[in-house]
């Protein structure tokens, strides 16, 4: 199940951009994650992606929040209550603080990254629960590349890509910091496709995602992401193939869009 959640989130990448012109404060996207076995779909969890404004004494940041919560029928079976958040510059989506607070079927983990872009260092904090209920912390300094981001900010960053300028087959590598390790993912533009979604029929950019040096995502061009081919570039549909089967992520509602 952990892999399932990871795969949902890893289905993203980024190109370098200058300005954020796709994401507004107060945007809320709701998705339904389901497990697909030979066409038989089982709804598992609700995934939400929200943005909000956070003011500090020095600046105004954008809070990018992703949550995953299993549906009632799954709570007794395998309860997931995950929270991922990233505090970014609203103009460039550069992350400054990242938090991952996950609770999956009795397993608890907390990760925190404090970025220092000048020194290219991330102050990482890992908190885990022992069997007796007590927590233990692990502090680490992780050296990162200039373009390295966390999963959440990457997820939003991708929406600012100039995909309309790309030709089918174009691909690029990106770096994500996950579990204190830099992971390279490849994003490939496949082409345009019109798909039917819960928010209407949408012309979309179809992208394929793969992770270098990892076998979490299986198959070639089997892990796909559809972003609306408009200025909002909202993710409306994602398909992924992992060891335990196929998963899908479908949009349920989208509110507070910029355009």
């Amino acid at each position, binding site marked *: 199940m952990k892999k399932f959640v990871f795969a949902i989130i890893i289905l993203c990448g980024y190109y370098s951009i200058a300005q954020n012109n796709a994401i507004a404060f107060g945007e809320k996207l709701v998705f*339904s994650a389901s*497990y697909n*076995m*030979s066409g*038989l*779909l*089982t*709804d598992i969890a*609700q995934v939400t992606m929200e943005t909000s404004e*956070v003011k*500090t*004494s*020095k*600046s*105004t*940041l954008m*809070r990018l*929040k992703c*949550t995953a*919560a*299993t*549906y*009632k*029928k*799954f*709570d007794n*079976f395998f*309860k997931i*209550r995950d*929270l991922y*958040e990233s*505090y970014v*510059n*609203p*103009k*460039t989506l*550069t992350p*400054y*603080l990242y*938090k991952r*607070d996950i*609770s999956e079927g009795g397993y608890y983990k907390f990760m925190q990254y*404090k*970025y*220092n*872009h*000048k020194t290219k260092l991330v102050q990482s904090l890992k908190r885990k629960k022992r069997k007796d209920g007590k927590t233990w912390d692990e502090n680490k300094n992780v050296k990162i590349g200039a373009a390295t981001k966390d999963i959440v900010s990457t997820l939003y960053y991708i929406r600012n890509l100039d995909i309309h300028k790309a030709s089918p087959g174009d691909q690029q590598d990106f770096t994500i910091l996950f579990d204190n390790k830099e992971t390279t993912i490849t994003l490939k533009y496949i082409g345009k496709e019109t798909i039917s979604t819960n928010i209407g029929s949408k012309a979309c950019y179809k992208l394929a995602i793969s992770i270098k040096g990892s076998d979490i995502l299986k198959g070639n061009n089997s892990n796909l992401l559809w972003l609306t081919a408009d200025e909002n570039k909202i993710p409306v549909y994602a398909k992924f193939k992992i060891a335990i089967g196929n998963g899908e992520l479908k949009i349920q509602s989208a509110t507070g869009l910029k355009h």
Partner: protein
Amino acid sequence: MGKKLIVILGFTTAVLGVILAVTPFSNLAVVPIIIAFICGLLIFLMSKKDQNKPKSIQYIFLMTIIALVLTIYKSVYYTSEVGDTKQLEQRDEDNLEDSKELLEDIEFDEDL
């Protein structure tokens, strides 16, 4: 020999159907239910020729009916709604407050 194999297959799929019907993956139970039903039917037809009625038919059909009723009941009455998220909301609020404090100490090297 063939009949024995069908009985074993029928039993296994009927049990699998019941197990899946009990779990949240109840709609996946449809496949084993169909196989178990076909196996049950085959055993019934074969026994008709032999003029004997083995107990296995009753068990397979009984389990198939239980699994089918459970699956139909769940698909009709269970909606996809999120359960209790109070704890998650609490963690969300706590994290936000903690983050605000942490962000006060972070140096921003670009124009915000």
